[in-house]
């Protein structure tokens, strides 16, 4: 915690300097800094307007909406099976994970459940999309701070995972593989052996990143004690996923709710960190990739035989009702509030995406930080533009 006190010292010096300026009656003027919409640190087109006093941010306001696609409106004119093709594109790095909660909500309304084998494979693919998503985050993290090497390692190792997803589903980025009542297909031959190999590679990748990046002194000084979010603020803003657990809240929807997924059959640890700073958020994600590889390994060993699809009518009509299902997606809590009126398509779908809440805290957390820290805080909060704008 030495970094914290150093920072306090810095702000003390800054305050002294401000006093000195006042004393000689020099007029200083604030400055408005525009970051984005097209900026490497914005992962797409998030624009941030920051009002600066010297090097310090007085207030900052993210401006989303450059990529709004109106999915909530579009779902109202689609049939239930067609909706998955849309919601695939919300968080495009972990697409399969987007499909699962919606399909589960539809199944809950229809009062059916996928066969155990399908639930197992869903969970495996869910965790694989987490690995693909978060491993890219770990690589990208370096780039934000000027370390270019990790991103190449991340792209190299994510490729193995994408190949697995492609092998099982046929789609690298947008699988569209989950069906109401099960899955489109069973796993291909030899896929399980390959997955075991890849999980080993991914654990090596985590070790490499930990050595190279998390052990790096520059990385630590750029993230430790920076962008601290206390637990009660995090909960109030609805932060979820690693961002919430990095603030010390022990809350993981994989463990804390009962869904027809195979999480209750595996043994995994939910990591939390008490600090709530940028470093904690990055560190939690690193641990989560490791846990995810372990979950996949265990699920492969216990994969039950059987069909991957229950009997569902060819034309799916979902009975009248309302259902909310959310899952612990790579970015946080992703949920769908599905209202059906007994038609072919949903009456309304409210999409609760993780990044929307995770980014809505930025005006709070960016207040008073220094300009270069904006980038690391945004990087550590980890958002995907499609997940904010929907």
């Amino acid at each position: 915690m030495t970094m914290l006190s150093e920072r306090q010292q810095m702000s003390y010096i800054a305050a002294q300097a401000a006093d000195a300026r006042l004393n000689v009656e020099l007029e200083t003027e604030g400055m408005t800094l525009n970051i984005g919409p097209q900026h490497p640190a914005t992962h797409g087109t998030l624009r941030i307007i920051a009002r600066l006093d010297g090097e310090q941010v007085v207030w900052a306001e993210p401006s989303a909406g450059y990529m709004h696609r109106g999915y909530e409106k579009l779902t109202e004119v689609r049939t239930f099976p067609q909706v998955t093709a849309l919601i695939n594109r919300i968080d495009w790095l972990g697409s399969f994970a987007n499909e699962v909660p919606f399909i589960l909500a539809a199944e809950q309304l229809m009062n059916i459940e996928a066969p155990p084998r399908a639930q197992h494979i869903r969970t495996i693919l869910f965790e694989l999309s987490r690995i693909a998503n978060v491993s890219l985050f770990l690589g990208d993290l370096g780039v934000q701070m000027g370390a270019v090497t990790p991103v190449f390692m991340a792209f190299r190792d994510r490729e193995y995972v994408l190949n697995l997803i492609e092998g099982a589903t046929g789609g690298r980025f947008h699988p569209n593989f989950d069906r109401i009542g099960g899955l489109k297909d069973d796993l291909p031959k030899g896929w399980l052996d390959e997955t075991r190999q890849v999980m080993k590679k991914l654990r090596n990748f985590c070790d490499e990143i930990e050595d190279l990046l998390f052990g790096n002194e520059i990385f630590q000084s750029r993230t430790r004690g920076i962008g601290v979010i206390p637990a009660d603020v995090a909960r109030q803003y609805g932060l979820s996923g690693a961002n919430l657990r990095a603030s010390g809240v022990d809350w993981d929807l994989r463990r804390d709710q009962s869904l027809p997924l195979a999480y209750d059959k595996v043994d995994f640890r939910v990591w939390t960190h008490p600090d709530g700073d940028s470093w904690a958020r990055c560190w939690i994600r690193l641990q989560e990739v490791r846990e995810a590889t372990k979950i996949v390994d265990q699920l492969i060993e216990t994969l039950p035989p059987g069909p991957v699809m229950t009997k569902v009518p060819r034309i799916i009509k979902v009975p009248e009702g309302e259902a909310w299902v959310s899952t612990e997606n790579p970015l946080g809590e992703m949920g769908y509030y599905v209202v059906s009126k007994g038609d072919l398509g949903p009456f309304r779908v409210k999409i609760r995406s993780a990044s929307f809440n995770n980014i809505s805290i930025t005006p709070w957390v960016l207040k008073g930080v220094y300009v270069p820290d904006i980038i690391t805080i945004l990087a550590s909060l980890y958002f995907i533009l499609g997940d904010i704008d929907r």
Partner: protein
Amino acid sequence: MAQLSDTDTDESTPVVDELRDEIVARLRADLGDAVVDVHQVPQVDLWVRVTPESWRAAGEALRAQGFDYFCFLSAMDWMPSPFGDGENDPTEEVEEDPAASEIRQGYTGGDTRFQMLARVTDTRRHVSVTLKADLPQHDDGAMSIESWIPVYAGANWHERETHEMFGISFDGHPDLRNMYLPGDFEGYPLRKDFPLLARLVKPWPGIVDVEPMPASDDDEGDDS
């Protein structure tokens, strides 16, 4: 860990959900008559409808009970779309069904076309509540309700989005600017009477998509 109902339990015995019953009891004690209706799926989920006047008070009462995690806030337009479902074959004759244009609210009922919808979670007891409230329209069609920002700071962006998409204003919200649409945009896209122009210009072939492929009609095709 919240468990779904045991598969062993006899279906004739009603599932008891003490946790959710207790939440409702405490809410009724705090709010009195303001709790209009409750819908519970034991061991799964809980819906509570409150009066619009007590919208913020309900949020405060839930927060005091330990619901400290803000999940989402939005609204519902219960009017059936005057433009049809959009997924039907546009060339098909449609039967006139008077029931199809009737406003029918979902769980916990209601009297107004628009309803508020919000969900909060207790991260210690692992339980969530979906809160609803009717939204009476004034003579000019405007609607307003108290902002939740003092209760849950995270409601800020959700209320901005709801204002933009449904035209509901939130009393006490500091900044109801549009998030997605241009500032001078007219209309509220998520209202059911807002047409989806792309669909009106070129209707979706719809039902054609789910018809069986010609090849799958004969059983000789190998099913691998």
